[in-house]
């Protein structure tokens, strides 16, 4: 097992870290608080495209760098470290990756170069009311019409749906699940803003007899569930990488703050109770890091990673919860003061924790796999 990153991977990491740490400032982030405006920094998105990062995992033929999922995850980790207001996970992971893996040549040519260049974005609708398994849609159905599909149903919490050229989603059909690319401007599509804890632009998407042509079908009924599982596992791993970046940052912010904050004439970091709570965060963050990159590297190699992804997501939920509360607590009042940058990290930690399965649900799923003899230790 190799725990190091190679030179190219470190370069991607450094490039992303440099741009994001310079460009994402508390002042800029404040523009999006309370939905003052849509949290999408298009100037930053353009800079990331210019540096080649939006196409880091896109084939060179479509204007990308041609690297794999590991490099993309390293980029996402840096997005998390800076909680950059850009749709990196929905666009680059949930939509562009499966398009490149399962899409026709024509679909790829039509949609992927624009993603890499930053010209347009894509997104994915992965959640329904009381149903967080994207491979088993319950509330969205489709029937065959004119060689394509007529779709009805409702999705919740669709990120950046208004800005997307296409929304990837799954629908239940006779004989399986189809994966479709829906144009948000198509007749019968309605988007209603949802207001959420971290101010991410999210929408309730309603589909009323929406016609999707054959050109926009990504997977046929017999293949759709597997395609959704494929992209869900990658999205979960990306959420873990995002959580890792932001938890690491919140922890280090806390270490610096407590080293400088004096009470009783000494830095509060010198109190053992403070140091030990920070040490617990260090162990949590390291646990999340190891599990995240184990899952990422297995996915990158197209190995079975269902158990590893579940475990990483459990750690992302638990680590995010514990680190965000420890960071806030050790900052005292500063941790909740909106003039100090920590609070946004804490809200994003909650978003990642609850996205695509909380720790409790993933533990239950893992438990079922264990009972079925599918998750023995190696």
């Amino acid at each position, binding site marked *: *097992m*190799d*725990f*190091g990153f190679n030179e190219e991977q470190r370069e991607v990491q450094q490039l992303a870290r440099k741009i994001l740490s310079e460009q994402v400032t508390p002042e800029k982030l404040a523009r999006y608080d309370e939905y003052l405006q849509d949290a999408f920094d298009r100037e930053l998105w353009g800079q990331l495209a210019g540096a080649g990062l939006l196409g880091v995992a896109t084939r060179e033929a479509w204007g990308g760098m041609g690297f794999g999922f590991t490099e993309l995850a390293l980029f996402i980790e840096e997005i998390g470290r800076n909680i950059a207001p850009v749709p990196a996970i929905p666009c680059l992971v949930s939509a562009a990756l499966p398009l490149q893996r399962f899409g026709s040549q024509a679909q790829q040519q039509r949609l992927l170069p624009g993603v890499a260049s930053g010209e347009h974005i894509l997104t994915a609708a992965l959640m329904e009311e009381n149903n967080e398994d994207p491979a088993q849609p319950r509330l969205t159905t489709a029937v065959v019409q004119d060689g394509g599909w007529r779709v009805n149903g409702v999705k919740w919490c669709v990120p950046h749906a208004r800005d997307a050229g296409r929304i990837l989603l799954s629908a239940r059909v006779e004989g399986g699940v189809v994966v479709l690319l829906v144009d948000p401007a198509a007749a019968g599509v309605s988007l209603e803003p949802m207001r959420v804890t971290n101010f991410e632009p999210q929408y309730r998407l309603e589909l009323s007899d929406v016609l999707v042509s054959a050109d926009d079908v990504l997977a046929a009924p017999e293949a759709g569930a597997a395609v959704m599982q494929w992209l869900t596992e990658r999205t979960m791993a990306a959420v873990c990488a995002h959580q890792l970046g932001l938890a690491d940052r919140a*922890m*280090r912010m806390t*270490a610096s703050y*407590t*080293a400088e904050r004096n009470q009783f004439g*000494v*830095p509060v*970091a*010198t*109190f*053992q109770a*403070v*140091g*030990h709570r*920070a*040490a*617990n965060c*260090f*162990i949590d963050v*390291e*646990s999340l890091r*190891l*599990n995240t990159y*184990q899952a990422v590297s297995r996915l990158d190699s197209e190995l079975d990673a269902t*158990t*590893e992804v*579940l*475990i990483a997501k*459990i*750690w992302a939920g638990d680590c995010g919860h514990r680190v965000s509360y420890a960071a806030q607590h050790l900052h005292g009042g500063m941790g909740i003061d909106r003039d100090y940058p920590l609070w946004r990290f804490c809200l994003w930690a909650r978003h990642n924790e609850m996205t695509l399965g909380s720790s409790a649900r993933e*533990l*239950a799923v*893992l*438990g*079922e796999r*264990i*009972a079925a*003899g599918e*998750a*023995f*230790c*190696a």
Partner: protein
Amino acid sequence: MRAGYPFPFLTTESVGPQLAEAGNAWQRSEIVPKILAGDCMIAIGYSEPGAGTDLAALKTSAVRDGDGWVINGQKMWTSLAHFCDYVWLAVRTDPDAPKKHKGISVFLVPTSDPGWSATRVVTLGGVKTNATYYDNIRVTEKNLVGELNGGWRLITGQLNRERLSLVNYGPTAVLFNTVVRWAMDTQLPAGGRVIDQPWVQMNLAKVRAGVEVLKLVAFKQAWAMTEGTLDMADASAAKVYGSEYFIEAYRALSEIIGQASLVNRKSEVGMVIQGKLERLYRTASIITFGGGTNEIQRDIISAAGLWMPRAAR
């Protein structure tokens, strides 16, 4: 370790490599090959009645006498000493050193010396350890490991390796799999299998998610040692995580088996999975403070891993 063989890992994984690195000609040519051949075992003598976590306060002394030294003092928790050929002994060689950890040296002291003796100490779990006594034991240059008064670096190096040896994945993986198979194969009198119960699946899932970290931490440390990049904060994090995880995992797995998990291997009836869990859960309490108490490990993590200032001691 997976087979459950009581392997003397402190000799082979911590003292052995330290001797191979820092030992003198005799230690390298005589002792190291014997360790490799399984013909030599070495106990560790650090703690004293008045020096535990504050190890540098140790009082056992080696006083210059002609071309050698004379050792006097007492050590606590000298585990396996009654099986061992030598004790890797930390002693004070410079009582006037300005910093107390700079006056400490390490000697290999033969347990065959007439001045050496041991008395048994029985612990909660039934595991036996020793208090050991050093009465005018004469040693020479041959027995000194590394530099005179340079023992602290050897002690911390040995402890780093010891902490990692404590966190081993294999036996826990075997234990988890054993309990899963037992729960799959065991029918409940009321119908259904043990593993069909949601709370059993939840306990197993928690243990499974935790053991994955144990595996990755252990493998990463092995990789870091090979690369020569072993990080102090990582070693301490591994020790804290592993020692606290073991206790939680044994508890969660014992809960699944229930009261029968407490039937031990000496019982003629009622033993489940060879009484393994009974023994592990009974004896696990040592690891959170053995090998350097977890409070000190957390101090190391916040200072070396997060650059937080430490209180003066």
